[in-house]
């Protein structure tokens, strides 16, 4: 049952990620990423993490990607993306990453006993997750909220400043 659900959604996740890399128009790449996010949420459900899966859908598909969509449409760069071919000179860099990592994955899969051990998922229901989060990881949780606050400050400060590349006021330079 689990494998029956795992492989189709893993394929969809890879398809969506491939769309982000290879689709030419930014809006389509963004919608491909939505596909990846939903498939990953299904996989989180399979791993008995329903709370994290729902937060994942709300935060990513609901907030982050809509924010990206707003920015892409606001800037009007939807039709501006150039072909990948113009950037193919750097393609060998991707290949140089891809071949060794594929080799390493194969080695890991074939020879590590870890990869064949069965899972014993612990259900992360909102109740158990919340209890765990607010007892053992309370301090990191508070620090994360502080980080988000600083992120908001940074976004407001950056977006409200007019110029990035300021010319110096005085004409004489050294």
């Amino acid at each position, binding site marked *: 049952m689990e494998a029956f659900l795992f492989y189709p959604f893993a394929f969809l996740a890879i398809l969506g990620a491939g769309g982000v890399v290879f689709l030419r128009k*930014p809006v389509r790449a963004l919608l491909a990423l939505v596909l990846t996010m939903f498939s990953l949420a299904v*996989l989180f459900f399979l*791993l008995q993490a329903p709370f994290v899966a729902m937060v994942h859908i709300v935060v990513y598909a609901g907030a982050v990607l809509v924010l990206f969509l707003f920015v892409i449409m606001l800037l009007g760069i939807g039709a501006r993306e150039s072909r990948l071919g113009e950037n193919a000179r750097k393609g060998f860099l991707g290949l140089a990453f891809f071949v060794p990592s594929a080799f390493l994955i194969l080695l890991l899969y074939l020879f590590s006993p870890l990869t064949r051990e069965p899972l014993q*998922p612990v259900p992360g229901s909102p109740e158990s*997750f919340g209890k765990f989060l607010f007892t053992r990881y309370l301090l990191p949780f508070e620090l994360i909220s502080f980080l988000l606050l600083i992120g908001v400050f940074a976004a407001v400060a950056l977006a409200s400043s007019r110029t990035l590349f300021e010319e110096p006021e005085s004409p004489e330079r050294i």
Partner: protein
Amino acid sequence: MPLGPYFVLSAILFALGLAGLFLRRNLLLILLSIEILLNSANLSLIAGSARWGDLTGQVFAFFGMTIAAAEVTVGLALAILLFRNANSVDTKEIELLKG
């Protein structure tokens, strides 16, 4: 269902995200590739949590999501500011820091 396929999927997503990071020229799509990288890390964290029967992995995936949200706010603000000033988000045209 063993742990292996989850880790392999996570590694494939990570490789695709890296490829996007190198191949894309649009700043916003580079940020999207970074999202893929963060999500592959989250998947392996949750799979590890299921393997060892410990909720810590799920908690760390949760923290990873919030950090990604903070990163996106700052990154998008930078992208808007850059577009307002340089009228482009193409990394080929923005080369002030090029040595």
